[in-house]
């Protein structure tokens, strides 16, 4: 399947999280199927590209940002960011939802704890966990 360049998807991050345009402009955005990839290199026309940059969005009724890309640009966000204390951050990384009211709009949010960007959450009255399994904290970790 081909990657099609659609830089408009960058606007999602500007609108939703207030990421400065000059940050988003460092990336080109590429659609393949139901996924959008963010790429910061110079495009090289190699046949049969498997992966171009990293996954930034999954497309559905509303676009869903990826934890991996939020971890890259999340530090520039100005809104729709939830800041958790250490204890709750660990719970969140374990895959739990977090109860509570946060000063963010409904929908996808960036979850952080101090300077650590933990990834994607879904806020609808409480904070629903969106961290992919591969990034979940395991009890043998420190």
């Amino acid at each position, binding site marked *: 399947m081909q990657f099609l360049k659609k830089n408009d998807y960058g606007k999602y991050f500007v609108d939703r999280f207030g990421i400065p345009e000059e940050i988003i402009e460092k*990336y080109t955005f590429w659609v393949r199927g139901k996924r959008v990839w*963010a*790429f*910061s*290199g*110079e495009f*090289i*026309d*190699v*046949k*049969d*590209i*498997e*992966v*171009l*940059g*990293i*996954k930034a969005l999954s497309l559905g009724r509303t676009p869903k940002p990826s934890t*991996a*890309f939020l*971890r*890259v640009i999340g530090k520039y966000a100005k809104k729709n960011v939830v800041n958790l204390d250490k204890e709750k951050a*660990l719970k969140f*990384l374990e895959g739990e939802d977090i109860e509570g009211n946060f000063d963010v709009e409904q929908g996808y949010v960036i979850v952080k704890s101090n300077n*650590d*960007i*933990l990834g994607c959450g879904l806020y609808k009255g409480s904070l629903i966990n969106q961290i992919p399994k*591969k*990034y979940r*904290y*395991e009890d*043998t*970790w*420190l």
Partner: protein
Amino acid sequence: MDKQKLEYFKQYSEIIPNFDAFMESLEKEQPYWMRVNTLKIGEEELIERLENKGFKLEKYKNLNAYKIVVMPVKHPGATVEHSLGYYYIQDLSSMAPVLVLNPQKGEKILDMAAAPGSKTTMIAELMREGTIVANDVNFNRLKSLGGNLERLGITNVIITKKDAKSGNFGIKFDKILLDAPCSGEGTIRKNPWGFRAVNDREHKMLARSQKIMLKNASKHLKNGGIIVYSTCTFNPWENESVVEYGIENLGLKPIHFDLPIPHLKGVEEWRGERYENSEYYKRIYPHLEDTGGMFIAVLKKE
């Protein structure tokens, strides 16, 4: 360690200086090394965080390379910081080819046998901006490469799945890393169970495909560009012999280079083959700095 596996290395007694120390080192457990992903966090900040958790880390010279002297977990990657992409576990010897490649901002670099991406991710970290084409034939290893890029937040890599012997990579590159598939003798300490001794015929077959890969690399190199050829094995057929083939047949020129990690020069002669340019090559042995093994050569196209 398996006596038979150790026996296998005796064939190199003539070419590896201080051979007894070399043999002893193979039986010793190899320490872990790591480097900080400075695309995400500062060196000092991360080291402090890990030390507060009970790690003891030793910075190597002025490099972003730390020996893990004490770790409070079973595996050095079992931490939140690792999951957040703040560091990468990589042997010091494996960092050497990338230091030699010396990636610069804005360059286009081809990494022909890249998975799981230890060197690709280090290239990205050093160059900050630029473009890397990272290639491998193995699907599962490519998945690990993709996972590592995501975890470390590296966004300037194009992944392809081609045969390095024949693949077309579209353009000519400023620099090419050919970290060739090899018999892996230098990783025996890291993975004694996984190590499989190969016979002469297999070494020769590996050498044959390494030469074809070098030829394809040369085709994709700009004039004035360099190829860093590396393997993690000791066998001269897979090292000196491949590089000399490139010098004699592909018009490539060997280049002198510095390396801040202890090493010795290339082998001059082995089993009837003489290697004219051995003083251009570098070999890292386990008994020099308590690491794995590595061969490195730099070839330039003029």
